[in-house]
């Protein structure tokens, strides 16, 4: 498990990237997907995920779609076109950041 402190700045990037790769997803699905990808090392807490989703939606990076399934209502998120651009930029920015961190911390990244 990684420390939530480390995750804090990358949450939006993760959400954007996951959505970019998988298209339409709902909140729970995103947590599960991230858990799977990180082999359980990264657990998105709901308390962080939902505010982030709403923030991204408000910023116009995400679209939502509401589907009624039985008694429940499921809200799907997709990237808008500015969202797609952002996803790309943020990932690139993050790779850049890791490389910089590599030099700062004097560790070799493969």
């Amino acid at each position, binding site marked *: 498990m990684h420390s939530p402190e480390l995750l804090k700045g990358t949450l939006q990037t993760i959400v954007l990237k996951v959505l970019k790769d998988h298209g339409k997803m*709902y909140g*729970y699905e995103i947590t*599960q997907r991230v858990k799977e990808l990180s082999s359980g090392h990264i657990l998105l*807490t709901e*308390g962080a995920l*939902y505010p982030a989703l*709403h923030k991204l939606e408000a910023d116009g990076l995400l679209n939502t779609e509401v589907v009624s399934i039985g008694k429940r*209502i499921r809200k799907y998120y997709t990237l808008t076109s500015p969202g797609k651009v952002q996803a790309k930029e943020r990932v690139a920015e993050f790779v850049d950041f890791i490389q910089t961190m590599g030099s700062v911390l004097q560790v070799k990244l493969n």
Partner: protein
Amino acid sequence: MAELTKDHIDYIIKDLHYRGIVLEGFEDEIIDHVCAGVEEAMGSGKKFIDAYEATLRSFGNTDGLLETQKKVIQVRTKTTSMFKNYFLLALRNHIRNKFYTTINVAGLAVGIASCIVIMLFVKHELGYDNFNDKADRIYRVNTALHFGSVQKRLALGGAQLNDLFRQNYPEIESTARLWDWGPRYVRRPEHNERVQEKMVWADSTLFAVFTLPLVEGDARTALKEPNTIAISQTMAAKYFPEGNAVGKSLLIDDNVNHRVTAVFKDLPENSHFHFDMFRSIVELPESKNMSLIGGGWMNIYLLLREGADPQQLEAKFPAFIEKYVGPQLADALQGDFNMEKFKSQGNSWSYWLTPLRDIHLHSDLEGEFEANGNITYVYLFSAIALFILIVACINFMNLSTARSASRAREVGIRKVMGSLRTHLVRQFLTESFVLTFISFVLALAIVWLSLPVFNGLALKTLSVPFDQPSFYLALVAAIVTVGFLAGLYPSFFLASFKPVNVLKGKLALGTKSGIVRSSLVVFQFVISIFLIVGTIAIQKQLHYVQHKKIGFQKDQVIIVHRAGFLKNHIQAFKDELLQNTSITAGTITGYLPVTGTWRNANTYWPEGKIPTHEDVKDMVSMEGWFVDNDYVKTLGMTIKQGRDFSREFPSDSTEAIVLNESAVEKFELGPNPLGKKLSSFTANRPDGSPDPNSIKSWTVIGVVEDFHFANMRENIAPLALFLQRSDGYVAFRFKSKSTQAVLDKIETLWKKLAPENAFEYSFLDEDYGKMYDTEKRLASIFAVFAGLAIVIACLGLFALAAFTAEQRTKEIGIRKTLGASVNSIVFLLSREYGKLVLIAFALSTPVAWYGVQWWIQGYSYRATIGLSVYMLAGGIALVIALLTIGYQCVRAAMMNPAKSLRSE
């Protein structure tokens, strides 16, 4: 993966609610998330309740959940797309409450539609003559004269003014005269059929003063020469369908050929005159060599130079009158006339100016071209429009605040979660705007559909100006205003709830707390009752004037028009028809006691009084009507004293007059007027002033009972009947049941005697009714809008009552189980609203009384609008209100208490 059962999901929803997850758009999402988590946990073999606990733990239990909700709220509050959010919320709220939304939208839409219609009407009325480019510099000259008991306010001036003004006042750029001689017969010289057209004599400067775009011809030269004529596009198409009207001829009154020199675009509807033809006044002998006090009274328009001050010009008129009018008066009156004496006897002569744009709404003088509008009605209708809109807005406010109880919890949670008061105000305002917007769209549709009906009522041709950008601007402005008006109070009211109280469930605010709400309902009904009183009062006055004893019998009289066409067959026409047993009497005359027929006012005085300045007070302006022997009999008038004209006295036709009672009084002839004599001039000098050598006297042989021959706004004027031929109409009194047969007979004979002219007729009672068309229009418009106001007010009341009943379901259930009867519960529920209507009645009566008194002062003959009218109006309002809420009350009272108590 295990599917959750319905019960499980219900459990989760309830539990999350209980834990305080209520945020729109967030709540559903969390429920789904939790469900998905639980499903997965159950998939790995856990029991439901354990799976649920585990999922919640991953959120951080209740605290974590609420923290997340709070964060989401904060995210939302901070971001720019809040508006979209508000908007969505508003929409959802409206959809969720279909009943109240429908009532709100319906009421508001009808209110706005009424308002738009009236505003279109007002705009139309205010825009009269604005199409003239120089409208702000054009003024009409009016004359007021007070001379003995002759008192006149004219929209006219003597023909000579035209030249004298131009010579004396350099600030006048141009003048234009219009002289209306009534409709004239027109035909092409090569055709036989002739038609009456609206025609007027005009100066060639007409086109320089007024903005009348020409389609053909040259504005500078048109009408410069005698016997030329400018015609409207419609006329050009009618008489010259082959095109190119200019240069062709029209024969007027069968004798003068006029050359068409110009074709102008039809005058817009909002012009104070609508002539189809202007004929050149140049060389018209009647317009020349006239004195200022004699003949040739015409409408004179001045075009002032840029920057000229009309008030300064008006200030110069007294000196002008001294210089020009004075000598002419002295000449006419002879003796040692001077202006000082003239004035010291209370006489006066004055000129003043009316700005062109004020003519339609502010001018009601003798000699206007058309019946003008009235600024009072513009104000009145604007007020009504505003009232209706306010009534509709009040509905919105009342329903919003009344339903506040059901939304109080939402407000409380939002506040606890960090919503600021401004956020809530914004959200509720958005709701009000969404609703207003929908109402406006609906209102436009209503306006579009109902405008033809209104046009029919008001005799206008209004249209919705969909093509004008300013219209849309006005709409947007209106939406904003109405949205704020309707939404502001409820917004602040709702937003000001204290979360502590609300969440403790301390809020009974919804049902009671209603001082503001009650006052608003009272206000609605004050307006409604006022409008009902207005409607009844106008109806009563209308009924009064139409059924008052009018001094003649208007029923069963047929009037044959254009009798002049019978020429010398006219007597034979009458005599032959009188052979018919269904026709009991007939008379040949141009003068009938309905407006639109001939009139002939002149100045008379008791014989022996010489009409010099010394005795001018004895001069009386009196109508002199030329009638035949059978006039009084045919029209069913009553001779009060003396006798009617008779064939036994041949001298009647030269020496006798029959006066009405009003004339006897005016001339102060005393209780026995018979045998007394009145004098008057019978001829004018060439300049139009009366010829002192032409004085003639008549002996009073009878007095006819006063009869109404003008609108009852006016007093019955002095009138004398002369036994003399005037051939405007032939009127017949006929027996009932034979109307069609009589008509056929008359028409057959007409066709025999005047084959080339169409037969036109009317009935006296219908013509009499037409004199009150304005009142009838006012009455029906008033009735329609009063009806609308009541409907909207009741719509609101209906919803309010429904809400109260809903709120008190439990109370009613308990009362019923304790033995209350249905009646007592209906009474309990309706009592509150009944009280409000009664208060409204008490408040509106004085206002309505004042309004009615003010309106009816305008009539010389008034119906009595007694207390009963006000009681009736109050009664109507009360009954309608009780019927409206009655349905809801009865429904609530009939409910099975077992059911209502079990609910929740």
